[in-house]
């Protein structure tokens, strides 16, 4: 960076005589910020405005009704809200322990060379497009779930009542699992980063008191990283809530509330994508309304988590990891 300062300022004039007075420069920056602000407002306005007919025709309670049947002019969103929350819950129940454990291993247990290799691999996997995961889920995993995974869960955990119904492969379980695989790299990569920056002095301080390796990780490293870990959790949850195509390919797309983990179901996003083509009038407005509900759920998760981070006393990490 130092080289930049030694570059004489005058050289700029040789390339281009164009310059702006400070006021003009400032004005251009403000225009840049204003365009973005305008886009955000336009975005919010569009979605709210276009879903308004659904609210005016169906009333507010429409969101929580159970029946989606365009022929009967019923557009209840409850099955899809539940489907969204259920698939996300399955994904996060798996991703939190497995992601945290892997991140701890990557940050503190794996030898240096493997650390770099595995770490880079995980970061790259976070970038694999979601449609690729969807393709893999529907072609490779769905038969596997139908033949092996679902029968196994039905026979072993059938008594819980969570695994009733036919083994169809596609359904809540598969959708949750695909989401788990998709959010895992995000979870691991960010968690590993925030775990690895816990100061070495803290780790050594605990070690020097006679702590076992796990005590060091559990009592010192994890608590110190918790704000950043929460940031990883929010990002992963946000991704799971809003994922569209991968879920639409493997969830089975049913308009009814799922009665077991094997049932086909649908999420708000998969509802929109599957019905958008033929929808018009109130149904289209209801689909936009579903988008609005999805946005509201996402923003709620985001702001609750931000508030939690703020209360826990650590600042900034969420904003900084959001860009990472």
């Amino acid at each position: 960076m130092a080289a930049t300062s030694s570059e004489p300022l005058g050289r700029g004039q040789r390339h281009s005589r164009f310059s702006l007075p400070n006021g003009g420069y400032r004005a251009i920056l403000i225009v840049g910020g204003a365009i973005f602000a305008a886009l955000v407002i336009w975005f919010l306005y569009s979605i709210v405005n276009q879903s308004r007919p659904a609210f005016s025709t169906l009333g507010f309670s429409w969101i929580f009704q159970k029946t989606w049947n365009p022929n009967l002019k019923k557009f209840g969103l409850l099955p899809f809200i539940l489907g969204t929350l259920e698939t996300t819950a399955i994904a996060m129940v798996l991703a939190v322990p497995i992601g945290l454990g892997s991140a701890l291993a990557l940050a503190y247990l794996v030898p240096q060379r493997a650390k770099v290799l595995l770490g880079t691999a995980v970061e790259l996997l976070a970038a694999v497009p979601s449609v690729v995961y969807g393709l893999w889920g529907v072609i490779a995993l769905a038969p596997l779930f139908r033949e092996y995974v679902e029968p196994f869960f039905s026979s072993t955990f059938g008594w819980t009542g969570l695994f009733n119904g036919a083994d169809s492969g596609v359904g809540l379980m598969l959708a949750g699992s695909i989401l788990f695989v998709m959010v895992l790299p995000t979870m691991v990569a960010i968690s590993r980063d925030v775990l690895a920056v816990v100061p070495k002095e803290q780790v050594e301080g605990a070690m020097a008191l006679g702590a076992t390796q796990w005590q060091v990780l559990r009592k010192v490293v994890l608590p110190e990283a918790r704000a950043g870990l929460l940031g990883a959790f929010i990002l992963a949850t946000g991704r799971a809530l809003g994922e569209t195509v991968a879920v639409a390919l493997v969830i089975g797309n049913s308009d009814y509330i799922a009665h077991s983990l094997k049932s086909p179901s649908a999420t708000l996003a998969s509802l929109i994508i599957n019905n958008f083509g033929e929808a018009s009038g109130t149904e289209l407005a209801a689909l936009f309304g579903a988008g609005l509900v999805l946005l509201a759920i996402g923003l709620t998760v985001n702001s609750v988590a931000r508030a939690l981070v703020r209360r826990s006393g650590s600042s900034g990490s969420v904003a900084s990891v959001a860009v990472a």
Partner: protein
Amino acid sequence: MTTLSFDSPADPILERRRQIQGIAKATVGRRKTYSRVAIGICWVFLVIAVIPLVAVILYTLAKGLPAWSTGFFTQPTKPEGIPNGGVWNAILGTVIIGAIATAVTIPLGLLAGLFLAESDGWAAGAIRFSADVMTGVPSILMGIFGYIALVRTFGYAGWIGAFSIGMIMLPVIMRAGETAIRGVDPHLSEAGLALGARKFMIARRIVLPAALPGIITGALLAIARGVGETAPLLFTIFGNQYLQANPTKPMEALPLVIYNYSSQPYADLIQIAWGAALLLMSAVLILNIGSRWLAGFLQRERR
């Protein structure tokens, strides 16, 4: 206790030391077993995490490579039953849409990023907050936005797909740009100010070049994320089985091909989908690896 023969038997400190060391010794076996089990679980979790991820990559490679023929790269998509179908129209569409989105969002994102880096008022705070929130908004909503705001007026078109994808890329570029610009040593621009340079010149000649590695990394990552998106395109470019290079018309794109073909019952279409998946994945991974390499390279150049 031989200890006590050397010391006053009433000494509370030696008594406590004996007590604590006794407890430490009595519990060390349990504590170490617990530690080993917990650490072992971390290892197991790491293996569990790696398996599906490796499986996705290998599966895509194994299924996708056989689809890569000359026709795959030179022919447009063809309906089931017609041989020698390719994805040339989708490759062209993805490249054109990605290029338009990049060409618009990078300058705009940089301006907004500079604005954020140089302002601390409530307006900048609100914009920064919305940018953070927008990075987390599900991509399908950007597709809906593009549909409502533009498709209804102009009809399905490639440039609207670029608009929707740009909406996803913009906040990422803004925040990455802001972070990179804020990371530039303030002394550099102060030196420029002291020499009487205008702020525009300082930004152009000092700040932006110094922040370039961070900006490029952010931009490449944003592009990689943008071109892999499917949902926004479904609402905006519609898909087009013919070759179409005019972005004001409906276009095809790689993610759309994968999505549409993956639920088809025909083996040849599914093979095309795998080929397209491998191509898209490779492109995204190359952009990612490239951004790292370039950032590292520029960083070294400056030293």
